[in-house]
Structures are given as C-alpha cells and as structure tokens.
C-alpha cells in the first residue's frame, strides 16, 4: 500500500510566482491493484506520480510505502512502512531503481542505441552479471513480440513497438510498482487495448499499477480497481 497524507507540491516556492500543482492530497493506493488517475490537463496527475515515484520531493506532507521497498533497501523488514519524503538521495535512487518501473508518456528511449541496450540501461549501475540481465531482457522483449528488433536502433521503431520497449525497460529490475503516465496517448485504440491486456497480466503477477489517463479505454476498464479524479491539484473523487 502507498499512503499519502497532506501532500503538497508547490513549484517556484519562495519565488514571486509560486504554483501549487498538488494540493493537500491524502490517499491510500492499494498494493497489487490498478489505480487510474484522471482529470483535466494541468490538474496535477503527472506531478503526483513524480512524487510517489521518488523523482521529486513534495513541498510538505508524507508518503509511506508499506512493504514495497524491501528489494531496494535490504535492511528493511519486508512489511515495514517506509517514509520516503525525508530519505537521503541515494536511498531514493535505489528505490527508483528497484521498486518503481516508469513508462513515460514520450517513452524517453535513449536514441541512437539498440532496443536491447535501452532495456539494459537501468541495470548498468547495479553491477549485476551482464549475461544474466541480458538473458532476462531478451526473454522479456521476446514475450513482448520484439524478438526481431533486439539489435535495431530505437529510432526506427513504430509507436507501439517503442512503447513495448519502454515497458520492457520499466520491468527489467522487476519492480513492485509500475507507473505509466498517459500510456495510451500515442496509441490507436487497438494498441491501447493491447496495452491494457499487458497491464492485466502484470496485475495478475501481483504488481501495483499506477496509470494516469484521459482515455476511457483506461479509466472505464473493468481492470481499474480505483479511479482517482483530480482537479486543480486536489483529489475530487475516488471510485
């Protein structure tokens, strides 16, 4: 479970034009479920995900991870709650690497290198045995139907293929939580359905899924266990 209490994110705090993108959000996100964040553009969905995913720190408030960060921080008892907003940077990095897998809206693949190398990127700093991770990456790419493209440069992939590379990369360190920001924004409805099919597999595998979306295919899906609606930085409904 991910627990947020009174989380605030103010950009340019202390400057002439402070802007509060996330305002006093208190929320419980269940583990091993799919949670969808919806709401108009600018309502703070992406910002909220960056706070949960340890990519930025909230201006105030607390975020607890319950039993999710044990892989990242081995000294932690598996079920122990971890308050992440006050952790030192290197722990946050470890959590980003092991606990969360991000699928970005623009995929954020590194151009000019191969599909396989992109998937391996998160493993380089871990110093794991390269043969073991490579075998894992190849298996994952094959299961995503990208066997033919292992050595292709990512620059030439189609949108759906690029997204599956991004998914393989998000999964390479076997994270407990998968975060996807507008995953279907660049996909046609068939590919969007395919994406939701994959998400359902991950949910069955016990992953916690957080997805932001404007797309009814996502938030109206029966897979969605919780739909959080946001407006102007605040949570207006949870269904």
């Amino acid at each position, binding site marked *: 479970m991910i627990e947020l209490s009174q989380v605030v994110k103010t950009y340019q705090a202390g400057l002439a034009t402070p802007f509060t993108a996330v305002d006093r959000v208190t929320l419980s996100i269940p583990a091993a479920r799919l949670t969808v964040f919806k709401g108009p553009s600018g309502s703070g969905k*992406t910002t909220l*995900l*960056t706070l949960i*995913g340890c*990519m*930025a*720190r909230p201006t105030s408030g607390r975020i607890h991870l319950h039993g999710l960060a044990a892989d990242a921080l*081995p000294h932690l008892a598996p079920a122990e709650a971890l308050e992440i907003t006050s952790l030192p*940077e*290197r722990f946050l*990095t*470890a959590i*980003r*690497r*092991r606990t969360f897998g*991000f699928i*970005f*809206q*623009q995929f*954020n693949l*590194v*151009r*000019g*290198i191969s599909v396989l*190398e992109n998937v391996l*990127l*998160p*493993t*380089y*700093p*871990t*110093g*794991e*045995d*390269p043969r073991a991770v490579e075998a894992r990456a190849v298996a994952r790419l094959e299961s995503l139907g990208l066997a033919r493209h292992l050595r292709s440069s990512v620059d030439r992939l189609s949108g759906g293929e690029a997204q599956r590379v991004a998914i393989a*990369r998000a999964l390479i*360190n076997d994270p407990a939580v998968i975060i996807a*920001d507008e995953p279907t924004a660049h996909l046609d409805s068939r590919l969007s359905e395919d994406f939701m099919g994959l998400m359902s597999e991950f949910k069955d595998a016990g992953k916690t899924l957080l997805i932001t979306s404007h797309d009814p295919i996502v938030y109206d899906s029966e897979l969605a266990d919780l739909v959080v609606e946001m407006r102007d930085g605040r949570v207006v409904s949870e269904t």
Partner: protein
Amino acid sequence: MRPPLQRYRNILDFALSSLLRRKGRNLALISVYTLVVFVIASLVFFVQALKREAHELLAQAPDMVVQRMVAGRHDPVPLAQVEAIRNIRGVDEVQARLWGYYYDPVFGGNLTVLATEDAALAPDAIWIGQGVARSMRVKEGDLIPLRGYDGQSNLFSIQKVLPESSELVSSDLVLMAPKDVRALFHFPEGLATDLAIQAGNPRELPTIAAKIVELYPDSRPILKTEILRTYEAVFDWRGGLMVVVLGSAVLSFIIFAWDKATGLSAEERKEIGVLKSLGWESSDVLLLKFWEGTVISVTAFLTGVLLAYAHVFFFSASLFEHALKGWSVLFPRFRLIPALDGYQLTVLFFLTVLPYTAATLVPSWRAATVDPDAAMRS
C-alpha cells in the same frame, strides 16, 4: 551491495556506445583536440631536442673565445697575441682557431670549414660531417671540388665522414689542414679567426677576460657560461620563449575545451534526466561523462603525441624548422636525435587532459544533480 568493478565496466561499455552514436561530433572534437596536442607536443619535443643539441655543442666548446673587433666587426686575430695571453695567470691553454664559412653555390648551403692539426688527416684530404655528405651526395673516397677565393676549383679527397653523435655539432663541418684553409680563403699567415682559451679554474674566467681586454682593448672575450645562460633563457621551461608559446597554446586550448564541453545539448540534458529516473545515481552519470571525456582526451593525447614525435624526429619538425632555426637549407634531411622525457610528457598530459576532463564534468555535474522529474516532461 554492488560489485563495483562490474559497474565501472558496464558504464564504460555504455560510454563507448554513447560516443559511437555521436560519431561525427566526437570525431570533429578528437581531430581538433589532436591537432592542439600535436602542435604543443611538437613544440615541446623540438625545443627540448634543440636544447640537448645545443648543450652538446657547448660541452665541446672552449671555456672562452676571444675575438678581435675592428670597426665593430669581427676581424682576424694576430697570432702574436697567443703568447701574451698564455702568460696571463690562470690560463691553461690558448689555441688559435682558423675557420670560416664556405658557401656552396651548387646546393645553396653554408659549410663550416675548420682547420685541424690532427695527424691522421692525409695531405689534400678532408673530413666531412654527415649533413655535408648527404647534401653533396658524396661518400668516403670521393673527390669534391671547392671553389677558392680566386674562383679556382680545389680538389679534395674525402678521407672520412664524421660519425653522427649530434648532428648540430658536426653535420655541416668540413675539417682540413691549416694550410689548405689559408689557401682556400686566402687567409693571411700570422692571423687566426679567433682564440680558444681553457682555464684551470672556471671561476677565474671573468678576471682573465678583464685582463685580456686590458691588454688588447679591441678584443672581445665571450664566456661559455654566458652562451649557456642565453640558451637557457630562450629554451627554458620556466622562463623565456617556451613558457610564452606554451602558455598561450594551453590557454587557447582551455578556452576551446571549455567552449566545446560546457555546452550540454538539450538532448544530453534530457538523457541525463532519463538515466536518473531509471535509477542512475549522480555519481553514475558523472562516471559515464568521465569515461566519455577520458576516452576522447586520451585518444587525442596519444594520437597527438605520436604524430608530434614522428613530426619532430622523423620529419625534422618540418612545420616549424624554418621559423625556429632559419638555416634549414643545409639540412634537407636534418634529423634530431629522438628523446622522450617523462617529466615533459606528464606535464603535457596534465595540461591537456585535465582541463578537458574538468570542462566535461562540470556541466554534467550540474545536470546530474537536478531532480529526475525533468524526464517526465518534454
């Protein structure tokens, strides 16, 4: 928690493929960088080699040379002075030297013709330096004609080509008997070109010089230590020409490196954000940038140094021989004796590789320490 060695290797591998995907840019960078290292290293090697040659030249030179000045110009010295100077206290030996320059119109260079009393020299024979042998295309046993003062050709047989110890010392030398020198140049009997003086105690040389001037007010004594000091001043690392040229070269290089390296493109910045969001630490990003910078700078350094070595020692520093020596006509294939100095290489390494590496690390460090959420927005 993480085996550090594997991490270094992984990140190095990625740095290499990273460099490859920006091939054009990095090749241009390495070329310019190599060129800079090449010029600086050539200069350092060349000046160092010249300095060595000069030292060798001076090691064989007498403690003091006395010339006679007439109307402000160098004029022959009467042999009568030899005895008088030998009687000055502290003087060990006075030798009247007989020498001159011979201009060879055929290959357009100057030779130094020097009289020698060496008994091994056969009559009507000469010994010549390697440079002379090369440019005249002659060898031992050949006959060569030298044009005398009156336009007549004088034939000499080459008895020996002097061994190559240091080319500057002996390369342009022609040794012949004193009577042949006088005949060739119509040099009057009873006069010498200058006097070479050895003193038992070098510290007495200034006193001896003063006494010589007292005795012969028209003479000009030149001490070896003075010449040495002039060489040092010109060629020295810490003072003189070297430091000025080297300093400006290094300065312009630092400016170049700074300019090239500090500009992180928007794409690189974004990439750093992506890497951080994937769980790379700032130190991992810095390690990546460090590898990239090191590969570029070490490649450029090694290539530049090797090219400079070939340039100076195999191609006779052809690019700036004219500017610095001004007498290259005689030495179409003049070769400096190869020598490498670890200290110089180290200094060179630090002057070129360090500024570049620092210049690449600073902006990456700034980018690597920002929050990774930049990767979420584009």
